[in-house]
């Protein structure tokens, strides 16, 4: 990825020593997400993905679920409602795919796409943005401790 502008389809991959079920739970359950997703509690069900505000008083809104196939595939809307500038942009889409492998190692692929109407969001999440989250998810599942 050598271009100066962030891509409208971004793909991130990571191998994690965990079962697909363990990864699925870490992605969809607030008790896990607050330990690797910038401290944010996110509850995802077959109906919606709710991002709670830091103080617990309100939510950053609900995003729709496009696909819910535990423990293999989850696709949901993305709208950066915690930031007014990003929130003004169009929603995009995030898809998580989990492939079981040998020796209890799974391949997690995250595709953030449909970012054509959200260039600032695309820049915000690209590279270190998503990799911080996925690196923290891997560390949490493999060591039981947060990354940092």
């Amino acid at each position, binding site marked *: 990825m050598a271009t100066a502008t962030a891509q409208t*389809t971004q793909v991130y991959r*990571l191998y994690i020593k965990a079962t697909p079920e363990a990864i699925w739970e870490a992605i969809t359950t607030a008790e896990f997400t607050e330990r690797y997703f910038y401290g944010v509690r996110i509850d995802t069900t077959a109906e919606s993905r709710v991002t709670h505000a830091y103080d617990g008083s309100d939510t950053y809104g609900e995003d729709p679920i496009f696909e819910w196939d535990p423990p293999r595939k989850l696709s949901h809307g993305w709208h950066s409602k915690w930031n007014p500038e990003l929130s003004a942009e169009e929603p995009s889409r995030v898809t998580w795919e989990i492939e079981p492998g040998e020796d209890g190692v799974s*391949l997690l692929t995250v595709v953030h796409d449909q970012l054509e109407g959200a260039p600032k969001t695309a820049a915000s999440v690209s590279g270190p943005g998503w990799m911080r989250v996925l690196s923290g998810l891997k560390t949490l599942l493999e*060591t039981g401790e947060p*990354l*940092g």
Partner: protein
Amino acid sequence: MTTITEVQTTQIYQVFIKATPEQIWDAITKPEFTERYFHGARHTITPDHYSSLGPDGSVWGDEDVFEFDPPRKLSHGWRSLYSDELDAEEASRVTWEIEPGDDGVSFLTVVHDRLEGAPKTAAKVSGSGWMGVLSGLKTLLETGESL
């Protein structure tokens, strides 16, 4: 990190690791570490030379080192000598950059570029290829175990 539509001639991979830059540098440049996460290959990287030996002792890599700035930046040539088909392609370049961060967490970026003359190599290393290596490096440094 790469697009799914085509294999790029400049590929960038990034990961955060709970380790110091010095620990990551050692894990990249010393064979006793690389054999535990880099497809079993033993890499020895000095200011002058990059050597990679396969598990059976055969030569997998034998390249120049362009930049050697421990523990922050390392750049070396890349040819896939372990495969006759890939071996016939032109050499490319791999650059490692390590940025220290808060809480003992470092940010590692690997750029594999100059792949214009090596399309099969580019396809081979892309996506899960390099991310398999970096995932294993992270697991080894954080848990002491191979992935």
